[in-house]
């Protein structure tokens, strides 16, 4: 995948399929320590110890239609190519936390990419999901909470095309203002 945001979309969809109603995405760009940290936390079904241990194995899956599951394995490979790592922590009934660390300035680190389009694709499913997105660059921060947006919009659904289109542009504009270089 060409962008980290595409990996995140893939993982967030796992959360949705695990029945998550709350998804928290935190991105921290720290040029001083040359790190990019990405944490995705959900309140879905979670996994037991054995499943966590094999979650990043491409040839492990819980579904019965096919014998492989590439999402986490691909993201792990991407992190490791940029001198980083991927950790998965989970407990049955308590949700899952995926934490990725990459070297910000590494040549093999894919760009974060179109975060606006990521948020748009996730909020498109927001009838079932509350989303909190926090993005830090140095000491500055952008925060978006779909529940706040929902209140501001009154009776208008977050999934209305005009709302979704505005959202993608809004997120990307805010990240530019923030000085995101990832």
């Amino acid at each position, binding site marked *: 995948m060409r962008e980290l945001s595409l990996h995140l979309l893939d993982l967030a969809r796992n959360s949705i399929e695990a029945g998550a109603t709350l998804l928290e995405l935190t991105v921290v760009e720290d040029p001083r320590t040359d790190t990019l940290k990405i944490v995705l936390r959900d309140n879905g079904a979670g996994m037991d110890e054995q499943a966590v241990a094999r979650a990043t194995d491409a040839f492990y899956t819980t579904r019965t239609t096919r014998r492989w599951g590439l999402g986490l394995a691909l993201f792990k490979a991407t992190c490791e190519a940029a001198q980083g790592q991927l950790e998965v922590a989970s407990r049955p009934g308590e949700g899952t936390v995926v934490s990725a660390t990459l070297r910000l300035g590494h040549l093999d680190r894919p760009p974060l990419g179109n975060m606006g389009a990521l948020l748009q694709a996730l909020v498109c499913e927001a009838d079932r999901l509350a989303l909190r997105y926090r993005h830090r660059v140095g000491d500055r921060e952008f925060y978006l909470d779909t529940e706040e947006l929902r209140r501001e919009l*009154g009776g208008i659904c977050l999934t*209305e095309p005009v709302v979704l289109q505005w959202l993608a542009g809004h997120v990307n504009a805010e990240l530019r203002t923030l000085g995101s270089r990832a």
Partner: protein
Amino acid sequence: MKTREELQAIRERAKAALAVRGSEGGIRVVIAMGTCGIAAGARETLSALIEELAQRGISDVTVSQTGCKGLCDKEPVVEVHLPSGQVITYGGVTPPVMRRIVAEQIVNGQIVSQYVIGTETEAC
């Protein structure tokens, strides 16, 4: 606060779109968004769909996403579910193809046969 003003404007636009219900009512568009679909560009297809619906002021088409359906070589895959129960499955739906599907199929009711990979009828 700029965001609040923008949201106010969006609210008005959405209300206007809701007031004008077109013939598209009840159509559901499902985009396959599994690992293979995402890698093949399904997210850009979704963005193109949203943009096209927003620009045309269409608000009664339901957009949803699903996982991999085993048609990985045909991705991005998009299904159009018509109120009649007919489901048209399209393959190779890049953003320009998605825009054509909105214009020709969703608005004008004409199947874009060039990209159809299957049709079936859902039991209601």
